[in-house]
């Protein structure tokens, strides 16, 4: 499994959220004021002011009882309209799925089963949430049943929130039932030989740096020609090494078992055929940076699991990433000495919660590729159910976000348009947003985007000018670059108003036997969902409030 681990920064996220809220609110207010002046003259701004104050009052004085009543109505509506029939599709899928699911991958034999269940739940929940939330209010408006409701003392914010809560509760029930059925199905269907994979491994990742062939520190290593420079390669039988620095380790917790497990999955690049009967070998060096103590482990170099190795390893061998278990007491022979020494892993090597592991390739002329996630300390495993239900929780959060967006869209457009709009938002959030983030990150780091912004890249395409050639100086270039930079600011804002739906897919973690990390995966998902609830509610309220329900 390839994944980069980026810790979630809550403070930064909240700051960014507030900033986006203020900027979007300001833009909306400005547009409203301009429109109101153009329609109502000088009295326009006072109308907007009254609408805003009324809006604030309506939002803060919502009644839970009325919201509950509307949510209850939504619940009854869904059941009586038999929207829950999607459950039948789910049952049918699970009745026959076992016939078609087999795994030929010895490395992750349970993966197809886990992936199937989580993906099926995800893609069954998504359209139901989408259709329910996008069609509910428009159907109410079309059937005019909402007209009767709003002639009662019901605030339109209560209508919007009531609908959201109603759909959310329906989806919650759906997700819980599907999750439980899916879990039982996995437990029953996964073959005995693959059951060892039903676990939630908890990795502790370190920071990766390198030593070059002369032993000098470096942030990067060799690129062996891959387009993707995810891994850096270190040359065998030189001073080059990949250095994994683990910090903030909970030594008390780790030392409870009197051993430390390291799990690894390196890649190999052979510059010559070498000994094809043996995998390329590597060795760990456990280092105490403070004292300079270096202990090689294992004492004999181990074989790296090259591709062929993965294919041939049997399930009895684990059929998965190899693990090296380091005992508490380590015996080694210091360089230049003849006698062995014994040191304590937790007292002598791990210092102040920090452990450094150097990985060297032993074979000359061969290369070992290491990425940050290729070596981790394996903390005590959690039950498979923990990871599985975290992934189900991710699906639930996605459903809630879809409901929030769909309900909001349905306050200002009709059902089909609301569905298209929300679906487009989901697709953009799944596919385009990572690209937008990448472009903006590049712009943030270097102040420019490779190939330029929209206008510059268009200009380059028309003039067949590649990205390495500088644009001719002059007014046109200056204008293009200025407009592009402004558009990038717009893109920055747009990026923040498009939810990142990739946060909700936790299937890769669970399918590969990992626990879903709280900080790296759960928090971004939760934050994304929470971040959209309030703005969507405000937008939905104002759209419904300013909408003439009876307009001809």
């Amino acid at each position, binding site marked *: 499994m390839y994944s980069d681990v980026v810790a979630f920064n809550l403070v930064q996220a909240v700051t960014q959220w507030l900033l986006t809220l203020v900027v979007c609110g300001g833009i909306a207010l400005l547009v409203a004021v301009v429109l109101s002046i153009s329609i109502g003259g000088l009295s326009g701004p006072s109308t907007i002011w009254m609408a805003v104050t009324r809006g604030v009052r309506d939002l803060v004085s919502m009644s839970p009882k009325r919201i509950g009543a509307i949510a209850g109505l939504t619940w009854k509506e869904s059941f009586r309209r038999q929207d829950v029939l999607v459950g039948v599709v789910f049952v049918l899928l699970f009745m026959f799925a076992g016939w078609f699911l087999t795994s030929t991958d010895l490395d992750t034999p349970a993966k197809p089963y886990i992936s199937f269940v989580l993906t099926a739940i995800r893609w069954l929940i998504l359209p139901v949430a989408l259709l329910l939330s996008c069609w509910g209010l428009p159907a109410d408006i079309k059937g005019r049943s909402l007209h009767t409701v709003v*002639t*009662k*003392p019901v605030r339109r914010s209560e209508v919007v929130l009531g609908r959201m809560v109603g759909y959310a509760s329906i989806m919650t029930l759906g997700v819980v039932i599907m999750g439980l059925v899916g879990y039982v199905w996995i437990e029953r269907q996964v073959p005995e030989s693959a059951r060892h994979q039903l676990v939630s491994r908890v990795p502790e990742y370190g920071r990766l740096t390198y030593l070059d062939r002369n032993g000098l520190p470096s942030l990067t290593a060799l690129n062996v020609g891959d387009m993707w420079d995810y891994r850096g390669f270190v040359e065998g039988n030189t001073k080059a090494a990949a250095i994994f620095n683990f910090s903030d380790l909970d030594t008390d917790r780790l030392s409870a078992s009197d051993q430390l497990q390291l799990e690894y999955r390196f890649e190999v690049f052979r510059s010559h055929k070498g000994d094809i009967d043996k995998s390329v070998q590597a060795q760990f060096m456990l280092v105490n940076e403070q004292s300079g103590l270096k202990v090689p482990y294992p004492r004999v170099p181990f074989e790296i699991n090259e591709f062929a190795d993965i294919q041939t390893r049997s399930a009895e061998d684990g059929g998965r990433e190899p693990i090296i278990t380091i005992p508490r007491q380590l015996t080694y022979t210091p360089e230049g000495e003849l006698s062995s020494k014994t040191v304590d892993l937790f007292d002598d090597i791990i210092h102040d919660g920090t452990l450094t592991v150097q990985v060297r390739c032993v074979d000359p002329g061969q290369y070992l590729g290491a990425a940050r996630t290729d070596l981790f300390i394996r903390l005590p495993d959690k039950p498979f159910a923990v990871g599985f239900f975290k992934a189900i929780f991710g699906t639930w959060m996605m459903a809630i976000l879809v409901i929030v967006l769909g309900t909001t869209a349905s306050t200002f457009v009709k059902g089909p348009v609301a569905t298209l709009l929300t679906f487009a938002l989901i697709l953009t959030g799944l596919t385009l947003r990572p690209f937008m983030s990448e472009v903006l990150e590049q712009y943030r780091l270097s102040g420019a985007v490779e190939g330029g912004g929209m206008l510059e890249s268009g200009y380059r395409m028309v003039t067949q000018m590649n990205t390495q050639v500088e644009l001719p100086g002059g007014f046109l270039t200056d204008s293009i670059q200025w407009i592009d930079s402004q558009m990038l600011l717009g893109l920055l804002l747009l990026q923040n108003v498009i939810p990142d739906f990739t946060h909700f897919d936790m299937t890769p973690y669970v399918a590969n036997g990992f626990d879903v990390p709280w900080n790296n995966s759960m928090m971004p998902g939760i934050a994304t969902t929470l971040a959209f609830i309030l703005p969507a509610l405000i937008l939905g309220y104002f759209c419904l409030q300013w909408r003439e329900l009876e307009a*001809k």
Partner: protein
Amino acid sequence: MDNESVIQIRNLSKVYRDFWGRKKVQALNSLSLDVKKGEVFGLLGPNGSGKTTTLKLLLGLLFPTEGEITVLGRPAHDVEKNEHIGYLPEESYLYRFLNADETLDFYGRLFKMSPQVRKERKDALIEQVGLQHARRRQLKEYSKGMTRRIGLAQALINNPDLVMLDEPTSGLDPLGTRDMKDMILKLRDEGKTVVMCSHLLADVQDVCDRIAILYGGELKVMGSVSELLQAQDETQMLTTHLSDDALREVEAVLAKHQAKMMKVDHPTTTLEDLFLRTVQESQARPGRRFVPGERPGEDGNAPETESGPSDAAKVEGAAS
């Protein structure tokens, strides 16, 4: 606000516009009127005259293009005012997947009524509108008349001070129409204000204290029904049966006072009365043919007849 006025409308105009903001229809033009507390006020007019638009503006379902509306002392867009308002829409726009019990319970919850109060109110209202037999049936199975009845019940769930009824008798059979009119008069007797719009003039005449007639979005006539319908230069007398001699004497007296007898005939009852009596009699004595001239209970052995009702109708006319 005038102490007596429940609704005040001043220079109210409404223009419907298309998506691009272009004017489509001028539905109301400078309408001003007051509705007093405790009266039954009728908005009349042909289709497209603006009466339903007025009602919807009062309820905040539409926004005025110009003018001011005050309902129960509050602006029309104020949600708080709805605490004291009941509204029966033209087509009883209710949730068709709910049954009568659930419908009233749902609307009761919107008024934050306690479960106990909700139960009492819905039991009373379901009985009042005569839907005890169908309270567990979903509204999609209801006839139009039954839907109007449950619509009225939901409008009264909060015991409102002001009741707005849009075409209240539309779709009802004569019995239902009579019940609805009785209900409106009962509401007035309880001190509530009723605003209704209808184009069924006879119904309006029966129940309204005051009316306003709209045409093309403008107010054409407004006043009390009795004053507006009274013919000031004519006098009508109703007596028991007069012989031809007596009639001649009356004619002579009139001539002496320079008055002229314009029309002498036997008054007739209304078709509605005839229908209601037929139904009541049929319920009281199933399987018997109704004789219109005979008063109910007068003779338990009223003869069955195959002939037309001409003679009996005379008797009926005389009796009335």
